[in-house]
């Protein structure tokens, strides 16, 4: 142990050091000190940090909560927690027990940790300007009730959630009342409920994340000014599973995302003034399920490839603009060679309306009968909303895939 006067101290913790436990080291530490924890196994119950310190693990020391405790609680600003393996937190239906919990703090950094079998993973409430990056969170709990969220942020602001890998939690990333934050380059897979659960959280961006095999996909609700760029939504299967569920979203951008092999890629309800461009929809059951309650949504330069149904809807009112997308099912021609089809494309097929009303009718899909019905409907639209059409369908892909 050495320290220079006027500079921050470094306190070593380890089997072969003078100080054996982390709790003791923290009690000795002054503000702005660094506690270096050497590799080993630490069973110390709940570690409580109320000073601005850096808690850094060397060779990934393991902190075990013995299925009873919340492992690290932080109630001081500017704390750094770096490089720990945090395992077996307690489980409770009354409290939100987490691997690492930040209470009313600002400027905290949680990075390079591995969390295994924790109830909630990393939990912040009323956090400001915290950075959560490069963590790996895994949970193998089977039931939603016995499982918490991976990264849970409640009533926070200016959070940065970067490059985390989250697997097997209830919701991978949970945002409620979080503003001005960014979720960037995370991978959220195989969670029991949502890969990303996002409510009442305005002016946030999520960029280049991957959401895959989640029980119910991704859900973004009751928010405005949300930006979603270059995310991948893949293989979210089931009746209630959507690539993204958008509910009551306004003034948002959905740009350059890829939706691959979802039962429904996007389900939109009460979405308004939202711009969706350059998204790729590939091999989904339904690319878009757009309810009649959506308005002023602009869809341009999107690519629809190999989807069973391109668009499904529940009414005949259309207040959205579908012009200038690429649809692989388009059968029109382009006489003046300007790259825009001369006939409008109607993405709602008759059969998608039938299946919407009577789901078991899916069993007849692709039969001669249904192709015949679809063809007649194209000539004389009766069931499908007549205004739901792309009047400027693109003849060629607008960009390289």
């Amino acid at each position, binding site marked *: 142990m050495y320290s220079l006067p006027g500079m921050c101290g470094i306190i070593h913790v380890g089997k072969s050091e003078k100080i054996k436990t982390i709790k003791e080291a923290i009690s000795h530490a002054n503000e702005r000190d660094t506690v270096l924890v050497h590799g080993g196994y630490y069973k110390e119950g709940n570690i409580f940090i109320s000073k601005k310190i850096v808690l850094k693990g060397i060779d990934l020391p393991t902190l075990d909560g013995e299925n009873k405790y919340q492992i690290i609680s932080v109630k001081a600003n500017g704390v750094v927690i770096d490089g720990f393996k945090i395992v077996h937190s307690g489980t409770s239906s009354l409290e939100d027990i987490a691997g690492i919990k930040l209470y009313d703090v600002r400027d905290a950094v949680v990075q390079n940790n591995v969390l295994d079998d924790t109830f909630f993973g990393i939990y912040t409430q009323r956090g400001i300007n915290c950075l959560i990056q490069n963590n790996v969170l895994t949970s193998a709990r089977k039931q939603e009730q016995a499982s918490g969220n991976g990264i849970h942020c409640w009533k926070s602001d200016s959070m940065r959630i970067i490059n985390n890998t989250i697997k097997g939690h209830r919701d991978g990333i949970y945002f409620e009342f979080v503003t001005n934050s960014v979720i960037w380059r995370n991978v959220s897979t195989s969670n029991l409920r949502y890969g990303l659960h996002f409510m009442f959280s305005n002016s946030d961006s999520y960029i280049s994340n991957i959401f895959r095999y989640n029980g119910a996909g991704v859900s973004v609700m009751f928010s405005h000014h949300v930006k979603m760029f270059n995310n991948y939504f893949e293989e979210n299967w089931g009746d209630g599973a959507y690539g993204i569920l958008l509910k009551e979203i306004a003034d948002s951008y959905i740009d350059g995302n890829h939706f691959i092999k979802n039962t429904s890629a996007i389900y939109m309800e009460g979405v308004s003034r939202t711009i969706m461009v350059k998204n790729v929809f590939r091999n989904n059951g339904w690319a878009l399920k757009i309810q009649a309650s959506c308005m002023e949504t602009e869809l341009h330069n999107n690519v629809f490839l*190999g989807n069973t149904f391109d668009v499904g809807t529940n009414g005949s009112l259309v207040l959205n603009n579908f012009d200038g997308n690429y649809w692989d099912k388009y059968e029109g021609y382009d006489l003046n060679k300007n790259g825009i089809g001369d006939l409008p494309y109607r993405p709602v097929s008759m059969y998608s309306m039938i299946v919407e009303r*009577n789901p078991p009718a899916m*069993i007849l*899909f692709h*039969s001669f009968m249904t192709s*015949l019905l679809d063809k007649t409907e194209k000539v004389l639209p009766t069931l499908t909303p007549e205004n739901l059409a792309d009047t400027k369908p693109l003849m060629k892909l607008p960009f390289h895939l």
Partner: protein
Amino acid sequence: MKKIIKYIITDILRNKIILSYTAFLLAISFTIFSLEDNSTKGLLSLLNIVLIIVPLISIIFSTIYIYNSAEFIELLVSQPLQRKKIWLGLFTGLAGSFTIAFLIGAGIPIILFEATAVGFMILAVGILLSIIFVAIAMLAAVKIRDKAKGIGVTILLWLYFSLLFDGIVLFLLFQFSDYPIEKPMIGVSMLNPIDIGRILILLKMDVSALMGYTGAVFKDFFGTTAGMITSFLVLAMWMICPLLISLRKFDRKDL
């Protein structure tokens, strides 16, 4: 019996209809795969061919062939040959040549362009449907003595299996839409070989759309190994039953 099969196959090949059918399939499949830039659309067009054209050609050509070889069959019956062997020889010859035609016509393009689970499922279903409709044609031909009437009946049968049956199913679906009819629907679909084939392909092709609640019911049945085996067994029954009935009829028929 081997001699009969050999004779029938060479006779069918000399007929040139099968040859042009093969060429037609080959041309269409190659065009589909080379014209479409995405293979899903190609497979969809191929699916329509397998479900509509293959049964139509099989059933009509086989019926006409049986009627046209009435004299040849009479000649064979006058020889010291078992009737069973003559009839089975005819069936094997017809079914064999249709299988070969489909394997060459659709199989080669599928293996070249789309050697995936969907491709192979389309191939398997196409072969099975060819054989099934040969068996159905033979049953119709042995039951009805008049050629014109016989051909009319087979066309009606084809129309029924590929169009009318689905119309009835759609009607039932809407009539009983308030009831949980997903499971009975599986049973109903077993009554039509084209439907079984279509659903088997559908499960490979549109699996994402089928993962919804109802789809999951179908997937739980058809998607499992047991369900697959059941559906293929039912398809086999669709081959064997018409054949056995026609065999009995032919055995007792006064030519």
